[in-house]
């Protein structure tokens, strides 16, 4: 089975730091990214959310020159969608718009621990699997793409070079919406191919 990544639940963190009325955090699972794909006419919109741990291997605020360079390089890589998600040439797709950024989960940058090393160890003790309360020091990469394709129906299969580029990524949960409705897929490192036949 796949390595169970450390799961940080969206707990209503009972931390005194939050004095606000609204306390909520997104689910955050290391190793698992989310990709949403919407087809409409000749346009394809894609949105990727991936944990910092998957993309650069750490989630603390990059302070050293080395870490900053890693984040910059990752953002630059994420801004080239066709290198990450390879579409068939027959579809004739070109990027209209692409943006990528690093966003902190709740913006509590001053209260962070080094989770990065802990998550990267291949073998965890049982105790490490405990869903630990997050103080919001998880970071996420977020990228949005808009593609224009001459023949979107030729996009039958998408190959995820994403897994080759980011060795810490294990899985991407994909949601697709097209004329035929919405559906979801899981693309894993072992079989990095998304089969969209039947969606057109």
């Amino acid at each position, binding site marked *: 089975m796949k390595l169970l990544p450390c799961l940080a639940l969206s707990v209503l963190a009972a931390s005194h730091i939050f004095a606000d009325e609204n306390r909520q955090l997104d689910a955050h699972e290391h190793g698992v990214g989310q990709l*949403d794909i919407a087809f*409409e006419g000749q346009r394809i919109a894609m*949105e990727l959310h991936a944990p910092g741990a998957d993309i650069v291997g750490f989630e603390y605020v990059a302070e050293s020159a080395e870490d900053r360079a890693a984040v910059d390089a990752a953002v630059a890589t994420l801004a080239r969608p066709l290198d990450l998600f390879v579409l068939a040439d027959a579809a004739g797709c070109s990027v209209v718009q692409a943006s990528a950024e690093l966003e902190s989960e709740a913006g509590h940058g001053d209260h962070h621990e080094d989770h990065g090393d802990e998550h990267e160890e291949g073998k965890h003790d049982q105790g490490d699997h405990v869903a630990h309360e997050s103080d919001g020091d998880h970071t996420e990469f977020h990228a949005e793409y808009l593609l224009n394709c001459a023949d979107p129906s030729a996009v039958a299969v998408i190959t995820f070079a994403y897994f080759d580029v980011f060795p810490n990524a294990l899985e991407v949960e994909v949601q697709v*919406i097209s004329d035929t409705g*919405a*559906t979801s897929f899981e693309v894993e490192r072992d079989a990095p191919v998304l089969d969209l036949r039947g969606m057109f």
Partner: protein
Amino acid sequence: MILRLASGSLFARALTVGMTVLAVSLSVALFLGVEKVRTGAKASFADTISGTDLIIGARSGSVQLLLYSVFRIGNATNNLTWESYQDIAARPEVDWIVPISLGDSHRQFRVMGTTPAFFDRYRYRSGQPLAMRDGATMSDLFDTVIGADVAATLGYDVGAPIVVAHGLASFSEHEDQPFRVSGILEKTGTPVDRTVIISLEAIEAIHVDWQSGAQIPGQSTPVDVIRQMKLEPQAITAALIGVKSRLQVFGLQRSINEYPQEPLLAILPGVALQELWQIVGIAETALIGVSAMVVVTALIGMMATIFSSLNERRREMAIFRAMGARPRVILGLLVLEAVLMAAIGAALGLALLYIGLLIGQPFVDRAFGLWLPIQAPTLREVWVVLGVVAAGAVVSIAPALRAYRMSLADGMMVRI
């Protein structure tokens, strides 16, 4: 020639052969029936909602939200405040939004409060809109539109009075505000058939004198006064949303899921359905497994009867040999007999299935709201039938080989 021999031999042993064929046919009918129910259930679930991009409700699970908002199975954990609803309705991405308010009932049927837009926007079976069989949509505050099953079960016609009960299984009824049936919907094969639809304002109207789930004693606001009141709901159960551009669906979904003022959940119906299949999938596989085992058992039973028939047919085989039949012919004869039995069994199974469907279809539809279509066998079913025939040939090889060897060794005389 050999075919005539085989069929003649089968006829000669009509009783045992008949029982074997019956076992095979029942197992085939069961297997295909399970398959039909499985695909029928899946299709009828998938056909229930179409054209809706997002469903929103209180934050719970996506499957739960789908089940209570669309299929009226289970209950909402929380309501969705009217303020949040209006906030979301005002967003630029939203093309249309239809609120749904559940919680009351009429007899065994659920009452749903909504806006007239529901009749335009709700789509089922790949984009089919709702149609009126009789009457019109609500024009008065105390008008109601009922689904086809409600009308059929309770024998209502347009104009019939209806009293809505508070809650789902309660004896307290909203007696002071009776409704009138203004329209009856065409049968859809969806939960809409079993729903009493009233306007959102009417839901508020019947709860005017109610507090904390009970009627305030002695208080009964006259209907005329209620009509004058501003009947704006405090909360609704869920809402269906259509977006202007499909490209914005995910952005809207994410922003609703991260809505800071209230914990909300937005789901894509198709994705939630798929999650539901993943849960149901295990039980499905188990069902298929069990019914496949029944087919295997029937085929092994056939093998056993062929084996036991070998002894009594020793003399017959020996006569064939004496008449010049090669041992290969003996082998072929037995395999052919088995194939014939399996084929008749499978064909009979198919016939049983369709007879069962013809008889059971209205009942299953009434009892479970599950429409099992009667169609020509699918390719998959044809393969199953062919597979059973092939498996019949395979299991007969063991007894046929035994007969082949015996026919080489045996003489005309049967030693007792």
